[in-house]
């Protein structure tokens, strides 16, 4: 973990996409989302509450996710977020854009590294 991405390098759009991706599988509460992102990225992305909650609020405002209060596994109440139809559409669109961009970036990086 020599080159850990810093918070600021995690651009806003990326975090939004990661959250949407995480919620695509199942509804989750805030802490769960943070943990899941860390797990999936094998510890590369660590999302703290100061970034996570504003992002959740933003996505909720824009109607991409919706929050509902529900009981947790240890019988407490937490706000569970799930994807809405527009959120699903945005995720699909975003994933496609991301793939195109990252493939292009990867090609550029590989090409320049291949030069003597």
């Amino acid at each position, binding site marked *: 973990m020599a080159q850990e991405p810093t918070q600021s390098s995690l651009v806003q759009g990326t975090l939004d996409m990661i959250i949407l991706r995480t919620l695509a599988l199942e509804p989750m509460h805030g*802490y769960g989302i943070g943990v899941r992102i860390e797990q999936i990225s094998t510890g590369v992305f660590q999302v703290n509450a100061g970034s996570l909650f504003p992002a959740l609020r933003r996505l909720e405002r824009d*109607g991409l996710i919706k929050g509902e209060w529900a009981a947790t596994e240890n019988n407490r109440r937490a706000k569970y977020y799930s994807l809405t139809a*527009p959120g699903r559409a945005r995720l699909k669109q975003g994933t496609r854009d991301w793939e195109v961009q990252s493939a292009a970036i990867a090609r550029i990086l590989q090409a320049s590294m291949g030069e003597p």
Partner: protein
Amino acid sequence: MIALLRRTAGRLRGLFHRKHEERALDDELREYVEASVAQHMARGLSREEAVRAARVALGSLDAVKEAVRDVGWETLADAACQDVRHAVRRLRSRPLTSLAAIGMLGLGIGITTAMFAIVDALLLRPVPFRDADRLAQVVMHDEHGGGGDVARPVLRAWKETPVFEAVEGHHSTTSLIESGDRLVERPTAVVTRGLFDMLGVHPIRGRGFEEGEGRAGTSDRVVISEDLWRSAFGADPAVVGSHITVNREPLTVVGILPADFRFPTAKTELWRPIDYEAPPPDAMARPTALVRIAAGIPEADVLRVAANVAHAADPSTNRLQAFTRPLAGAYRDTYLTGAVPLLTGGVLLVFLVLCANVSSLLLERFTSRRREFAMCSALGASRGRLFRQALVESAMFGTLGAATGLAIAWGLVGVTRGFLPESFLLQTLNPLNVDYRAIGAASLSGFLATAAAGVLPAWVGTRMNAANSLRVVERGGTETRAARSVTRALLVGEIALACALLVGATLLVRSFVNLAQVDRGLNSRGVVTAWITFSKSLDDSAARTATAAVLEDGVRHLPGVTKVALSWGLPPGGGGISFGDWRPDTAGAAPVSLVVDRYWVGADFFDLYGIPLLAGRTFRPEDTSGQVIVGQRLAAALWPGTSAVGRRFTFLTQHFEVVGVAKEINHPSIDVRQDHPEFYEPFTAGGTRVMISIRCGSACPDAPLIRRRLTELSPDVRVIDVRPLDSVYFKQLATPRAAAAMGFAFAAVAIVAAASGLFTVLSYGVSRRRREFGIRTALGSSPAQIRGLVLRDGLTVALAGVTIGSVAAWWLARGLASLEYGVTPADPITWSIVFGVIGVTTMAACWRPARQATHLDPVMLLREE
């Protein structure tokens, strides 16, 4: 679309349920911490350690909440509310400077708005009717000009042309209206039925004209103006449907038009119907055509079609072309084209001065609050947030200033309507109100004032780095450099503008004084003039002249009257104007082309007015109409260097013989071409009007007595107007007086504003530099030296301002050249007045701050630390 709605709804909910949302956020974060704790405990940490770890991972709970709140604009609105509340508190914490700032902004916005209303009425929108750009008068001219009217068949033919959406006709006349025992004369228009609809005016009472009205037998209807209704008929609602006597003829009032409606002239107060298809026998033959051009047709096509149609309908127009003329604003005099734009410039200058002043006032406010800003900044407020807060405070001043300004504008426009010279008001059909356009102008100038006066202080005032500014505040040393240079630059600008305005105003005032002091060549003091009109029964000149003689004799016996003279007018009113070639009887002399005023005067005229005869004699009863008395200028033009008495001259087919030469009469006008040479013919009552001049000894009989006496003397006489001659002359100078008064008012406002700006800035400077002055005093500076420091500061600013201002003033003075009378831009008196006034004002503004600086006790100051 739906998403957008949902989002907006969510945001609104967010705004209204803030408390609820806050609670939900709290719950959610608590849950987050709990989950985190549980996780840590699952890894084997004790509860306490787990809570600690979770807290560390979370960081500041408040920071998270703040970050969440910052999402979306509802927080922006929230912050704005906060800013406004803060600004209101700030406003009230220093009421005096707040009031001063709002007052100055209000004054600036007020005069700007009022000036806009005037410019709008006079120049921008002189025709305030629906789709005014498609309304026009159509005339048939050739290259030498032509009449403004057309033959009836042409009007009829134009009505059938598709290029015109509507065609109406009208002509103007005047009417004598009887109201009680008084007779008032009012401009009158005879109009076709559809004209009111075409202009989009609706009667406030009664109705307009109907189909079939304006023919023989139905032309005895009349619509009157609201003004006439109020002034002559006491606003009696029963007037509608009743009879009034106009030109000795009973007419039925069918409606009353609103006071704001002005057509075809600004003063028209009576409208009578006419149907040009079947007009009453005594109707005017040729109407003036007023058209609404169909939308979307190029003007060239319209005019071509109109000309062709007119040629077919009236063969006498075959060689003429069609032209359009605006309904108003086509003819503009020197003052309108010269003075109004200059006054507008003056107003903008005053506006700028006031904005600059408010700007320095706000700068002083903001810089004196550096400690507060520094504190906020140290507590984590961003520069943007502080700037926004300061800007909201400025905008508050702008808004309150605009509201004050609107009230001031409303008052000013009311005053202006009464005070603006008639010659201005006659050039527009716009009633000159604070209408929605003026309100728009007020809002815009409020916005501009905020931008001009608020942004700079907010920027400079909130610029700091926390460490530095905290230190500066603690030491309370000298003025901050940025604030200092900005305020000084603003002051230099203010004084420069005030200087330019002062020069302009002084020139205008001096021009007015010169105009008022012009030797008219006659003595008007103690003279009352009465205009009378003869009834139609006296239809011959000899009968009228005989009746006039009876009147002259009758008035002579009124108490206090010493002299009476008959005339048809007196410069510059009445009389006739003849222009063309005047041929003297000198052998071989070329004709002289001149514009000459002609007056018909009785034998006592010269004596009554104290006009000396330089040669020859005055009129005798046996003089015939060819025998004349010429003025000096005409005599000199026709017979240069020789005596004119006994000589003859010819104008067109008329022959004249000179029996005397009178001293020239001047009438003051900035346009010297208006002052024509004149000559006099023996009095005959050629027209239906006569002026009776009455000179009195100690006191004149009052107007009603003269009026009554005249009507008693002859049943065929109506009195139009009785008034002192000086009041007529006073009115004549209304335009230059208005220009001088306005210029003076603007300059006064500007100079007072600049002085108070200088005072504020210097006082503030002294209060900032108390410590410095204290140390200087402690080190042995004398009070005179300290005072010198402050005075030098003020005088440097003033000197720079005057230097720049003089250059600007020179330009302004040259721009004013067309309005100057008897002064030049280089007038030494004007410039000494200006420099004197600015010097004295500067000294007055510097004096108190300078004294304050010397009255500081160094021991007290050092103890303040």
